[in-house]
């Protein structure tokens, strides 16, 4: 099993969710996040005061999927989240050893 963590633009959440639903991914965790990669901050002046936003608002998606789904999921996220500009985000993949459904102790892919 693989854990997919994707950092995406806030405006792309709906289209990424829809794309994932289309390929049969039902569950995901959505977190409000802030951060920056190569895309640096943003400065606004308001009434003579400077407001610098060096950590830009992003959405972090987390989902654990069967290994057979990994490429499909990566494709779905990439296509839906891409604008081609700096700041589109990143996808991280990592191995997951076990999944346990708390309700009934079910384990493995069946618990996903």
């Amino acid at each position, binding site marked *: 099993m693989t854990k997919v963590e994707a950092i995406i633009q806030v405006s792309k959440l709906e289209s990424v969710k829809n794309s994932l639903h289309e390929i049969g991914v039902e569950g995901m965790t959505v977190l409000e996040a*802030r951060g920056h990669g190569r895309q640096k901050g943003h400065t606004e002046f*308001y009434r003579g005061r400077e407001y610098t*936003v060096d950590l830009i*608002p992003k959405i972090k998606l987390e989902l654990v999927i069967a290994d057979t789904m990994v490429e499909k999921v990566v494709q779905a996220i990439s296509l839906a989240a891409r604008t081609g500009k700096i700041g589109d985000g990143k996808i991280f993949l990592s191995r997951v050893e076990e999944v346990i459904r708390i309700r009934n102790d079910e384990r493995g892919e069946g618990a996903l």
Partner: protein
Amino acid sequence: MTTASSSSSELRDLYAEESARIRQEFASTGNGCAAVTQRTALVEQIALRLWTEMIDPEERGPRNFTLVALGGFGRKWLFPHSDLDLLFLHADRETEQAFKDRIREFSQGLWDLRLKVSPATRTLQECDRFDPANVEFAISLLDCRYLAGDADLFARLHDKIIPKLMTREAQSLLQRLDDVTRSRHEKFGNTVFHLEPNVKDTPGGLRDCNVALWLSLLSSIDKLHDWPDPNSPLSAAVRKQFEPALDFLMSVRCFLHLRSGRDDNLLSWEAQEEAAKLGIGMYDSQGLSAADWMRIYFGHARSIHRTATQLLDEIPAAWSPLSRHFHNLRSRVSDADFSVVDGLVFLRQSSALQDPEVLLRLFHFVAHHDVRLSTTTENKIERVLPSLAATPPRGAELWLYLGEILAQPHAAQALRAMHSLRLLTLLLPELKAIDALVVRDFYHRFTVDEHSFLAIENLHRLRQARSEWEKHYAEILAELEQPELLYLSLLLHDTGKGEPSDNHVVGSLAIAERCLERLDLEPSERETVLFLIGNHLEMSAALRRDIFDSATVAAFADKVGTPERLKMLCLFTYADIKAVNPDALTPWKAENVWQLYISAANQLNRNVDQRLHLDADANDEKMTRLRTLAPTAGKKVKAFLEGLPQRYLKTYAASEVLHHLEMSENLGKHPIQLDLKRGRHWFELTLVTNDRPFLFGKVAGALAAWGMNIVKATAFSNLAGTVVDAFYFTDRFRTLELNLSEWERFKRGISDVLMGEADLEPMLKSRLQAEEKKGTPKVKIKTSIQFDDQCSSNSTLVQVVAQDRPGLLHTVASCFANHKCNIEIALIDTEGQMAIDVFYLTTNRKKLAPEHLKRVEAALRAALQNGP
């Protein structure tokens, strides 16, 4: 052993059979009160059987040892899965030791029947001792009831020890009850209106019933030094409201316990559906919708909550020295109509309430001073409501008071009090549809009416802003010209949820329109309220896009139109999200809302001077409205608007634009057209004339010479050179306020200065000399002058931030005029002692050349340094 196990199995059968019978009877009658009484009797019967088998063959034996029921068991309120609170009372240590093993067996016997026992063992002497660490035990003694054993021992506890203990420790017990209840209420946001309430713990739940009964008992024992009449610890008036509500809640809790087979008190959405269908708590109707059934629940919960909080407020011993001091401070706010005693408002004259104005002033008083209505005041209000319903106040008079109430720091508290007494829906029937309305979604925690009150409260709480981003919001709230319009919008924004429609915003707009009509708001005020309601989800929608993308910001700013509306919408969004549930407004969201606000504010200032060309805007909403208002003036309107900045059209309502047009048409009769109005916060002078050098500076100077303090000003001009300048000022010496006859002289004075028929300089000089004597200001503001040649395609922007002082605007505007700069747009603002003035300047309809700019800057710096 055989006997014991057969007895145990017999008891188990008895308990199972009788429990099933109670369950069936409840299913057919829905009578919760009967069900708890029957279960109490059943458990009591079992306890007595075990007592005679394990403790003493006689129910009234042995000597010096008694079995006492406490808590719900003591009150005879044993719900299907409630715990059993038992006290094993001993005369002394010896009996305690002697019965130790048998008590364990007795408890084990109850446990074996799956009865959850909470036992306590005390000697009589221990019961007399007050333990500050276990106040709950002392309070539980208020519900004590004899079950078995030595009746004389119980009588000593009940008749002597408890009254003595309660009288001696009344202060501590009341204080503890007060603390625990208030902190429980706080945990639930101090409201009964939860979408999924806990029927035991949420305010207005069964625990509040207990609190009300305990407070009454404690208060009576404190006075009588003895138990009051066991049947009426509550007064007859309170019982009338309280008992039907208690009956209803008992049925609901029984239903929840039996439905889930455990001590489950959460009235979830699924449970609400079922309860409504079965008509739980209703003896005469079934098949109600869940929303209607919940309204009945909230009505009862409100009665219980009101009784409990009133008793908490009214029993003086419940106050700590600190809260007593606080209440005494409150008493000082009494006035000619209302007296405040111990933090509660009383009427000085009962008959005064016949006058609706006094009634509205009473709630203004509550909203202003953070005080609560006394029970007698509430009763008096309830008595006048029927006559008020026949001829309720309406129109501008009602809005005058309502607007004032909404703007007070404790407005939400006053609104809740008005709502609870059914006065709010009498005054604003539009709110009836959302009264205690449950709308189910995954986010909202409160009913629609409570959500609206909470949103208003969230804004008022900004006065105590702590976090950085809260301080930003507090700052723009303090700058609003008419905050009452924002509060009214919040009150009405979700009224559409009470109507069967997919889009509640459309419903809310239609309802609000009717309400604003009845309240007789000014057209521009109506437009603002309708704008806020119609667009209250726009900012949240924009947050789901890229708020750093200039196109997103531009589209949003364009929709909002003016900085004032932007401020209001930003605050609306903040308050609305925060009122969804306590965690809804994460710092992430709050910062994003603020970021979008400042980007949009800058966007609005950058595009402030884009000119109108009406062919392109022929289908604009405002133009449509203008055409409706003045169907025959089409060409004239177009000619008047041609070349005015877009901001002009966004600043003024259609009716105001038509008024300006009318003034411009009168320029042939007199070249200076002035209109003077008095607003709630300041006076407004509108000038329509043909543009000429020194115009803006002269008006500013003339106002300063009259002693007026300019807090805001705008200046716009069209292609034909007609200017529309507006000055908003406070009348520092109350010249206009106290002398109506001075209005004409004032206007004539301004007109004479502009026509060159009066000399401004000597007038201004004498006024400024008088001002100089007043000394230096408390807050020093450093002067800052910024030029921006990039932000506009047509004009050069100058922003002057300086210490506000009489004649400042005249000094700045005259300096521009002296250097042949034309003021295309002026946006004048004042925050405390800081003046923030923004001017869009041109020379010969072009930006200022760099050399020219340098000369203007040097002159302006010198002028500001030298003072007026």
